[in-house]
């Protein structure tokens, strides 16, 4: 049997509450990289944003939010097939961009797809702005600033 017909490949992180298969995980990887591409700074692939997102949905979402997320995840791929003619993983970069543009415009997008997309985008952003890279190189987090200025000139702010 050709491997491409294998439906339930395994997911690469232990999930307790939501059920996601390997194909869906791969789709999440492609989607998060489309949202946050790797360029001269780390993107979703480098940060494993898709695994962070799945872990957060599994651990921190309420049951009804998880159900909506999973429904949206399935519908998202169906939407891709409908709009781009292929699953998101197989779609070209241009097709992926076109689909995300449509979703961002929010016109005639199923509620579950929007909920899934918005959650994934928010968590992808969080995986970036909460990363060691971001908090040391882009916006350095100070563990012990030792100062507070209440009227600090904006012009001097780094």
């Amino acid at each position, binding site marked *: 049997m050709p491997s491409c017909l294998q439906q339930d490949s395994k997911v690469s992180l232990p999930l307790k509450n939501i059920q996601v298969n390997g194909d869906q995980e791969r789709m999440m990887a492609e989607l998060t990289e*489309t*949202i*946050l*591409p790797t*360029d001269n*700074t780390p*993107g979703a692939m480098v940060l494993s944003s898709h695994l962070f997102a799945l*872990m*957060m949905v599994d*651990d*921190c*979402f*309420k*049951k009804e939010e998880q159900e909506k997320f999973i429904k949206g995840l399935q519908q998202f791929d169906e939407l891709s097939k409908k709009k781009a003619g292929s699953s998101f993983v197989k779609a070209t970069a241009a097709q992926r*961009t076109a689909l*995300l543009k449509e979703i*961002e*415009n929010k016109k005639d997008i199923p509620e579950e797809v929007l909920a899934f997309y918005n959650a994934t*985008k928010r968590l992808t*952003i*969080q995986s*970036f*702005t*909460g*990363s*060691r890279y*971001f*908090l040391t190189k*882009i*916006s350095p*987090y*100070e*563990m*012990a*600033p*030792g*100062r*507070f*200025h*209440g*009227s*600090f*000139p*904006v*012009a001097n*702010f780094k």
Partner: protein
Amino acid sequence: MGVTNDKLKYDAIVIGSGMSGGWAAKEFCEKGLKTLLLERGRDVKHIKDYPTTNMYPWEFKHGGQVPAKIQEDNPVVSKCYAFREDTMHFFVKDVEHPYVQEKPFDWIRGYQVGGKSIMWARQTQRWSDYDFEGPARDGFAVDWPIRYKDIAPWYSYVEKFVGISGNKDGLATLPDGEFLPAWELTCVENYFKDFLAKSYKDRHVIYARCAHVTKPEPIHIEQGRGQCQGRALCQRGCPFGGYFNANSTTIPWAQKTGNLTLRPFSVVHSIIYDEKKGKATGVRVIDTNTKEMIEFFAPVIFLNAAALNTNLILLNSTSSRFPNGLGNDNGLLGKYIAFHNYRARISGKYDGFKEFTTDGRRPTSAYIPRFRNVFKQETDFLRGYAAGFNSFRESVHQSTDGLFGEELKNKLTAKPEPGDWNVGSHMMGETIPKETNYVTLDKEKKDEWGIPQLKISVVYDDNDEKMTKDFIEQMTEMYTKAGFTDIKTSDSKNSPGLDIHEMGGVRMGHDPKTSVLNKWNQLHACPNVFITDGACMTSTSTQNPSLTYMAFTARAADYALSQLKKGEL
């Protein structure tokens, strides 16, 4: 079985190692008393047992969020603002220590050495006579048996040791103390301060005094504490000892004398009353590891188990002399519980000072002392409220709506544009102690040690509703007149308890018929038992109460020592 290496006789026993118990232990040990400090929970050693204290944001698995399963299993503690991924190990989980809510009450607890002093909000405003005279003037509860002059020197005594950051504001309603330097207010806070001063009689914005060592004095160096670094991660425990908690300050100080025996894992079942001697002789303790019950003895006992658990221990300390709980001759024990009303909030924006922002972090904010009904009764409700006042400039990456790919990445990595100045206040309202707000022992339900569970029946009343409404009205007026925009108000309708300022049940008073404790915090009917935690409070005023508990404790310990010397206890 029953073999123990424990020494069973001490000069003093202190029940509870938190905010006030730590002070009792320090005072006794310093004066040479062999002191047993009992703690129901585990030990927490300063720095060593603060597992998250030096963790960077990216080291937290869930970015600081408490997982949903923990929240679902523990709905009460999950409502607490300080219960986060970095601090949750210091909070009692609902499932571990159930209690009975006859009326909904969010009981927030910290069962460990240091108690809630590890996670407190560190606000330290003194009471004044406008607070102590409240019950007598307005005809509720009973008259406080003390006045400001009785406690003022003890405030100073405690403040010098703890380290309090503040400004001398010269307000009669909120007396000045022994202050270390203040952190700065923001330009918006200073603007609002000036605005209120010129627009209202007796409404003020001040820097909120807080238990932070902003400039260490020799005493703080001697304690091994250093300067506050403005981490604002205080509830994890501070590696600098920059803020006060029992773990960094009072307990090690007591230990240094060689007179302290700190015994964690020791749940106090009850206080032992000797009918022949007519006084308490010791305490019954259940060792939570061995399940063994052990009796310890001492001529003086300080009960500092935190307000409601202090009530529980007294109610469970029955004898033929005191069938309804130790010291409970008048049936008042457990009654007149009060708290602080923190329901209302207000927020807004200020369209000015665009050229300024803030830099660094500070562990406090500004404070609006009570201005309602202070000098005379002026509204259709009794007493009043203080308020926090905080401002910050949003420096977010604005909206990421519609953005993905390269555009999103550019937005996130660009220097953030400073956003609006945001302002906000929360209400800290005095509530009126009432007989109908009480705690009692549940008749059937027991904890895992066989001790009855506490049943809590505490609700808001009409006075609280009117006061909440007034806070929203007055603050809205003040914010509007000051030119704040986008004003939003809310009433959380939270159950009592989330203020974590539950007080009373063992109130002080002049008369043994109408109170349980005398002016020295001794049980009227059993004077070698002292209660100096929140349970002793006759009324609540509006100030965060820990500083007052510490001052009461130092004062009562001094009195107990003098009485011991005279052979009076």
